[in-house]
């Protein structure tokens, strides 16, 4: 794989950029693989990369019903942070954050991870209690997160309205400085290129129809639009479509898929230096490197695979943004889109083994999967390769719904991811 560098760009400029090669081949399926990963998003492609790199398993295919990175990887608001409350979550997301730190160099692909800081606003006494609990827990877990007064929050993010007369006054904020954003498509492309360079097949436009199991119940492969493909192990990392794929293997999941909407404004000159999240009013905002304000909203109330979403929710989200940042009232919305997020009862992910032998699953990321991408991929690869949980993903079992040992970030703090 030719290395990317500024030098390579200059050199290729001399030949009119006609000599760049494809970043990953458009593979056709082989008869059998050691591992098939269903879903070519950041998580699936990343898991393939780590399987190849860290476990030497290269006879791997990543299969997607559409084009790679076309699901939630390419549709989210790219917020990356790790200031979660529970030890289990903090460890998982902080592991991801550690990997984010060197990811561009690791992949030789600039994913533009920007440590611009993520600030979460507290609007009432309950928020203050909850976020301070986060701050203290994070501090003792070695996770960066600190408490800001309203004035400090305003200094960090000048467009913020901290008037005490606001309907939702800012009573303070939790700031994780190491957190930020990344270029979502580049994450999928970078993993795809690096995985393909190590021999992984990336098979696009190939819907998986069913997971096939042998007489002993173990997985034998997948039926796809391009025919049956054998596999010793199968890992499903299909986000909103996980229930449907797992159902075909006879595994019913504690998941529901909801529409999630996001939008961008027209591009403007730099005005917004960080990421701000307000869980109380359900709005999340940052400014992209193109200058667009990137704004995320909550999920619609009903399950859906339509990727449409309703107008009232968007109206509410935009109103909330304008209430917190009144100077944006005359900005214009450029485009709005929808994704499908798979949500578990405790709003935490499921990563690991399933009741079916050699079938693994990575799902339930809800609205927060992007930030976990390297961590989820890395620990999923470990579990698939060794058949055992990684210490970091061990608590995120499917079995916790039987025992009641939930990791309920949402219940604990009414915090969206």
């Amino acid at each position, binding site marked *: 794989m030719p290395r*990317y*560098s*500024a030098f*390579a760009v200059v050199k290729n*400029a001399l030949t009119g*950029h006609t000599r760049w090669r494809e*970043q990953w081949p*458009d593979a056709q399926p082989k008869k059998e693989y050691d591992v098939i990963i269903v879903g070519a998003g950041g998580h699936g492609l990343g898991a393939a990369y780590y399987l190849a790199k860290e476990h030497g398993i290269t006879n791997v295919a990543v299969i997607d019903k559409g*084009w790679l990175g*076309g699901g939630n990887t390419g549709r989210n608001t790219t917020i990356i942070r790790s200031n979660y409350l529970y030890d289990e979550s903090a460890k998982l997301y902080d592991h991801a954050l550690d990997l984010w730190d060197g990811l561009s*160099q690791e992949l*030789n*692909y*600039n994913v*533009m991870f*920007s*440590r611009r800081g993520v600030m979460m606003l507290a609007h*009432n006494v309950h928020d203050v*209690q909850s976020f301070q609990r986060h*701050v*203290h*827990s994070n501090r*003792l877990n070695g996770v960066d997160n600190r408490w800001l007064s309203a004035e400090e929050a305003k200094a960090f993010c000048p467009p913020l309205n901290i008037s005490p007369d606001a*309907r*939702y006054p800012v009573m303070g904020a939790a700031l994780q400085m190491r957190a930020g954003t990344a270029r979502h498509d*580049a994450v999928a*492309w970078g993993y795809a290129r690096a995985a393909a360079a190590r021999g992984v097949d990336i098979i*696009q436009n190939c819907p998986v129809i069913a997971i096939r199991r042998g007489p002993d119940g173990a997985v034998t492969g997948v039926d796809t639009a391009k025919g049956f493909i054998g596999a010793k192990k199968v890992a499903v990392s299909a986000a909103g479509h996980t229930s449907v794929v797992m159902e075909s293997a006879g595994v019913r999941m504690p998941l529901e898929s909801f529409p999630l909407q996001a939008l961008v*404004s*027209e591009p403007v*000159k*730099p*005005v917004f230096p960080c990421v701000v999240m307000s869980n109380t009013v359900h709005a999340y905002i940052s*400014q992209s490197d*193109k*200058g667009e304000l990137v704004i995320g909203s909550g999920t619609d109330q009903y399950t859906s695979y*339509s990727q*449409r979403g309703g*107008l009232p929710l968007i109206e*509410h989200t935009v*109103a909330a943004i304008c*209430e917190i940042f009144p*100077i*944006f*009232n*005359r*900005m*214009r*919305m450029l*485009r*709005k*889109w929808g994704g499908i997020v798979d949500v578990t*009862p405790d709003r935490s992910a499921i990563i690991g083994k399933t009741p079916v032998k050699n079938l693994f699953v990575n799902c339930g990321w809800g609205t927060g999967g992007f930030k976990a991408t390297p961590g989820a991929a890395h620990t999923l690869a470990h579990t698939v390769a060794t058949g055992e949980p990684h210490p970091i993903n061990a608590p995120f079992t499917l079995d916790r719904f*039987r*025992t*009641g040992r*939930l990791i309920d970030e*949402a219940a*604990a*703090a009414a915090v969206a991811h």
Partner: protein
Amino acid sequence: MSQFRIPGKGRVDHAKTVRFAFDNREYTGLRGDTVASALLAHGVHLMGRSFKYHRPRGPVTADSAEPNALIGTSRGPGRFEPNTRATVQELREGLICESQNRLGALSFDFGAVNDALYPLFPAGFYYKTFMWPRSFWDKLYEPVIRRAAGLGRAPSEVDPDTYASRYLHADLLVVGAGPSGLMAALEAARAGVRVTLVDENAEMGGALLSDPGVEIDGRPAWDWLDATLAELASLGVRLMTRTTAIGYYHQNMIGLCQKLTDHLDEIADNAPRERMWRVRATRVVLAQGALEKPLVFHGNDRPGVMLAGAAQTYLHRYGVKVGTRAVIVTSHDSAYHAAFDLAAAGTRIVAIVETRAAPPETLRAEARVRGIELLAGHTVTGTRGRLRVASVTVNPVQGGRVGEPRMIHCDCLLMSGGWTPSLHLFSHTKGSLQWDAESNTFLPGRMTENCHIAGAGRGLWGFEAALTDGAKAGADAARALGNEAKAAPLSVAHDRPGTGESHRELPTDRRSSRVRAFIDFQNDVTAKDIRLAVREGMRSIEHVKRYTTNGMATDQGKMSNINGLMIAADAVGKAPPEVGLTTFRPPYTPTTFGAFAGYHRGATFEVTRRTPIDPWAEANGAVFEPVSLWRRAWYFPKGGEDMEAAVARECRATRASVGIFDASTLGKIEVAGPDAVEFMNRMYTNPWTKLAPGRCRYGVLLGEDGYIRDDGVIGRLSDELFHVTTTTGGAPRVLNMMEDYLQTEWPDLDVWLTSTTEQWATVALNGPNARKVLEGLVEGVDLSAEAMPHMSVAECRVAGFPARLFRLSFTGELGFEINVPARHGLALWEALMEAGRPHDITPYGTETMHVLRAEKGFIIVGQDTDGTVAPEDAGLGWAIGKKKPDFVGKRSLARPDLVAPGRKQLVGLLTEDGGVKLEEGAQIVLDPDQPLPMKMVGHVTSSYHSATLGRSIAMALIEGGHDMEGRDVYLPMPDGTHRARITSTAFYDPDGSRLKL
């Protein structure tokens, strides 16, 4: 009058001049002009700079698809907005405009250095660079990249304008008031249908406004238009101009954004700037016409290069010639008409460069008559001119070979690459698009909504075709609505039908490395970038779009998508539909945030619920806190007290004498019916059967998962009537949950639930003197401890009002809660204040309430519990009816993790130093000397300074806490580690003797 404005021509008012400024220079235009038409009338084409290379740009369209001519517009303080389309913004007196994305002057932009270095910035270059050395990313590369962001500058002041919204229900909504839309609306309205017709432009007519020579039913186009609009109005059709259909949502809900004041010289008081309409239409006709495609050749982005249809619009609508020497380059018949009309208006048409070898003979003949040189079978291989096109290079093409170049001088180059149906709204419905190989366009396919598409939107061309098709769509819609309708025939004279060919890049004799043929003008995406993306493995159009940013500019790909797709498909070697078309996403054109927010701003952003006693609290200096949708009095500072001092005073006064508290926000539910007690037994953990009428009990409500959801005191008023109270925030949730079980699981129970939260105002009176204050006001009940013991309820009169009187206590003091009909709440409060005067009655707020209850170890659901706490964890095991076979959540309490040792349990916590008040949320460890990450065993849920006890107190959830009473734990804080001892949560009067007064 400039040489470019034709006196008397167009739909502008030549008698009314309007002054405006662009980049600090004063100009005049005419009423009815857009900024673009007014500037063009002065010969100004240069209106902006592109995003990446800062190339000079002028308007390429005359409509909302404009990618280039974006300007900042302002009208006084707070009324600035960036990225406004100069081609859409109507002129108003005193309008101030500025160009964007330039370093220095518009005519000399230092940012254009990027243009010279363009070989270094191909599509996706940033993914390959800026990685070394790693530390440079944070400090150098990323800040530089971020500084380059954006086009215009963001507003910096609060918007003084207001925005409105409306719901609208229509039998038929017609989007687009061109020939098709007008006819659709007309036929449907004639059939008796309730029609709304909208158009994004300042006036209706669409293409008719740019083609006045057409005759319809024997009348000139504009006469016919006037008559049609008059008939529509007389039929009661709602006609809305300056109204953009921004999105097509589920089941024929269309969002419309109507601009109300941006074009007005003066803004009336209370006039909203824009209004968002949420229309629900039984049927929809989409008559949005077609978008003209640019041609793709080297230098196609220079100011003065414009779509031929746009030039025709500037001529006929605004009376503006876009140049004096024009060259036309086209692959479609329509551009000939623009050429002929311009020629008639005095622009010299130097040549028509026709990419087709054999254009229609009629057009050739017409060109010949006018003395216009027609270069059929030719290509354009370049343009020249620094800030404005000065010449164009054309070459013959024969058998695929590009012949010798010829340079033609001109001051404008008008292009047409044919037309593509505007199917954005249809695409929002997830309707399928079908590729039409003959016309090389996507046409509407399978419909998912009750909608019709008419005219150029489905590939038809020419006025007769569009009018006829619109009439048919209107009649079809009327029939679908159950009305009788038949489209009347129309006759059209001087029609301008036409056909054309579709192209990728035009053939060229230039070395490919030196060709810069733009596809997405704003984002500076060239044909070469698209081919590079495909070469690098981007085989889906979504990948190509994201890698090159083609189609992601503020025109949302209206100019670029189809050209990009044709070239990508060619590079991939597949048919266009196999490469796909990126999804069009709402809004159709960029839409003001304020219009989405509507009335939800400031005081009306969201409901603020206030109690009947709120006015008294406000008048008496209360500080408020938001609690769910309510605002509640937090504390009542006196004479410059801070919160701590006020709360300490309120606490002391209540414990020493009597305090008064507004508890009206508590949720209240009337549970009534023969099966009321059975229902209560099933819902709440507690047993209710033996609770006597006239008595109360503290109830705990779980979710089916076994965790605490809500709590409150519940009074039994009679055998078959309970007065249930809930937490303030929990009231709607609890009622919903109860209704759910009642309606769907136990519909056989004869019991009914009614919310009475707002029927009653509730005042809590607490303290040793509470009875003394109340006594004189109560009629019909004996308040003595014997007759009315702790946890009892009675109906009586208080201060002359009918009341439900509870004796209960959330403070540990003798306490009463008086419920009176809400209209009397304030009067009751005032009567109690008056009666309490001899006892120094002290009003207190939620903070004091929290402190007093914490001193007693009473929990606040949501603060001391967090959705993962079961009753035993919270020390509420006593509230579980052990003998009950079932209640909501009971089974979950037996799940493995809920019976496992080591669960977090609620305990009291006393710091070693009573002067230290712990932070709520502080984490607890057993070993303070361990390294990070530390093993945390719990956290502080509540913490206060207790004036009563003269020290701090806290409650905490700690793993296995119930077995750890007396043990010390540690709280490592940034400023040092605190030691604290685990205690019971009952800090004050643990045996409850004060309740027995």
